[in-house]
């Protein structure tokens, strides 16, 4: 029972990642699940649902179809929906039930593509992994399917930038995306494309013309590696946070400096997202980390952690910062400097060691007697829309003042 979350929540699952990364691109997105209502996947963690048209559906798989492995009803329904809605592509992913019976999503992909004539993604999500490999896989598919050959090679210093991994799951819709784009263009860069807020499929198809890829969340690390291997576009991992962080990030982009925040060489070997039982067990391990107290513990997704740590150290003068990622299936390269723990008791212990904890407000439930040590940084992929009102714009120079105020 140690893996049971008694007071904590769970992160958005793999299928949410697919829906979020593809949401605005004009595709039909189908969750193969028994749920009759897609709000489970697409309203709680998808703030764009309320004001952006989309085509997200749930298949409504039933007991007999499951027992018989009947994929035909799903394929027929998709074909019918395609005829009515005229999407640009089809994406199908699974929930725990199809995963348990070993549904062959690659075969469904082939059958749907043949039936509809549309580019189709059949993705073996299971509703157990996090949104990171889900969005990561969807981005790779988008790139392989739609990216056009570039007109010219990447230039240095960089001028044209792709913003990768910009989904509401990590940035919400409180103004982070707008601010980020403003920072990029104000600094004299050309915004080549933004994955995934605000651009169309046709714009994304031109992304290989960029000089540099800004990896803003773990969801995009696989995509950045693919674009490096295919088009020679270098990547820079990090979010521009605070005054110094923003200046440093822009400088790193200009110089195509892959070592920024991570120490990467830019030649990191592509390690694909993991999907076996062995990997799931990583969620259950109970690592024991150093027993020494620290000034600040930050909890969240790895790119955010690295960026926040740099800001705390370099701008706030706090040297003793620890990073904890509860997402065991984040890209391995990004976890090299990060502690990983998913078991509630382990996270509680880590919070106890810290003088301050910067995390989604749900984590404050771990230590009800020490609530004042927690600084609330709501994370859409964790608490959904619940704390929208408290969500700051954490991108850009103005975040310095916000954080300074919280730390005093």
């Amino acid at each position, binding site marked *: 029972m140690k893996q049971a979350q008694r007071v904590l929540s769970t992160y958005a699952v793999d299928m949410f990642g697919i829906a979020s990364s593809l949401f605005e691109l004009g595709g039909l997105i189908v969750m193969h699940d028994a749920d009759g209502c897609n709000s489970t996947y697409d309203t709680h963690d998808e703030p764009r649902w309320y004001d952006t048209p989309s085509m997200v559906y749930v298949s409504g798989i039933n007991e007999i179809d499951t027992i018989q492995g009947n994929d035909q009803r799903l394929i027929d329904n998709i074909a019918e929906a395609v005829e009515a809605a005229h999407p640009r592509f089809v994406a199908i992913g699974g929930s725990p039930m199809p995963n348990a*019976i070993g549904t062959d999503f690659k075969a469904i992909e082939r059958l749907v593509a043949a039936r509809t004539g549309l580019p189709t993604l059949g993705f073996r999500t299971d509703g157990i992994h996090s949104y990171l490999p889900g969005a990561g896989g969807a981005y790779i598919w988008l790139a392989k399917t739609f990216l056009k050959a570039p007109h010219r090679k990447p230039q240095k210093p960089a001028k044209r930038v792709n913003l990768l991994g910009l989904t509401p799951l990590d940035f919400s819709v409180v103004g982070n995306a707008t601010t980020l784009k403003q920072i990029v263009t104000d600094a004299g860069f050309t915004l080549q494309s933004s994955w995934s807020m605000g651009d169309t499929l046709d714009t994304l198809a031109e992304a290989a013309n960029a000089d540099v890829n800004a990896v803003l969340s773990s969801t995009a690390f696989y995509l950045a590696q693919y674009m490096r291997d295919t088009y020679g576009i270098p990547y820079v991992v990090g979010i521009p946070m605070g005054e110094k962080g923003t200046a440093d990030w822009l400088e790193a982009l200009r110089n195509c400096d892959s070592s920024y925040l991570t120490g990467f060489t830019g030649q990191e070997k592509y390690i694909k997202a993991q*999907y*076996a039982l062995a990997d799931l067990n990583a969620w259950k391990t109970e690592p024991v980390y150093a027993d020494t107290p620290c000034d600040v513990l930050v909890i969240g997704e790895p790119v955010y952690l690295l960026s926040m740590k740099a800001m705390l150290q370099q701008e706030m003068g706090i040297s003793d910062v620890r990073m904890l990622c509860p997402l065991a299936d984040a890209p391995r390269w990004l976890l090299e400097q990060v502690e990983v723990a998913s078991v509630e008791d382990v996270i509680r212990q880590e919070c106890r060691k810290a003088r301050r904890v910067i995390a989604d407000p749900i984590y404050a439930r771990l230590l009800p007697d020490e609530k004042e040590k927690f600084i609330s940084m709501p994370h859409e992929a964790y608490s959904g829309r619940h704390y929208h009102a408290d969500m700051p714009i954490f991108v850009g120079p103005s975040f310095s003042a916000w954080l300074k105020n919280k730390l005093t």
Partner: protein
Amino acid sequence: MRKFAIYGKGGIGKSTTAANVSAALSMMGKKVVQVGCDPKADSTLNLLHGHPVTPVMDYYREHTEGPDFDHIGREGFGGVFCIETGGPTPGLGCAGRGIIATFDLMDEQEVFQKLQPDVVLYDVLGDVVCGGFSAPIRDGYADEIFIVTSGEKMALYAAANIIKAVENFKSRGYAQVKGIILNRRNVDDEYELVKAFADEHGLPIVADIPRSKEIQYYENKGMTVVEGDPDLPVSQIYRELAQKLLQV
């Protein structure tokens, strides 16, 4: 890399055939991986001199984490890398899903990238009883299927069912049946019966393996007949079958 799946009725001699073909291929200098896809986990026994490899599902039962590359399988005769999926405790769980989980693990451990085999042989449980047992012929796994049968009525009935199932999977991009391996049980007019069956389905008989005491003799010693005495006529047939599979 050539990837074959061996199907056929339970007890018809799939594992014996697969192990002897693997042994023969290894003697031709080929790097071979044999994957037993049966909860009984006895596919590779005769390549390992009676010291079985721990099936992946057994490993999961005993450890909190899955096996790493060094524990997922073991080299047997001729350097054949042997993997057994195994299965759940009989009467519980889902054996077919165990096959899929093992394939996921092989994928994650990059078994084929590390071993760079020339040939992969999937030795699959007799009947395709659920989705998991079709996993070896899904897109990305075996490309070609060979069915082992004798002239016995029930063996041919099972072979017909397998062919029918595989034909239904054609639009899903699955592997297709490429030939019949006749494993004789000394039924009257056995060759003619199997030949008529093969012709009916437009398939060649790629080997005609006689019933042989030598096979049992060497199996009792924990080895394939190909390893035990490669010059025996029956060993020669397996070696010719190995060559023919590469040529099909």
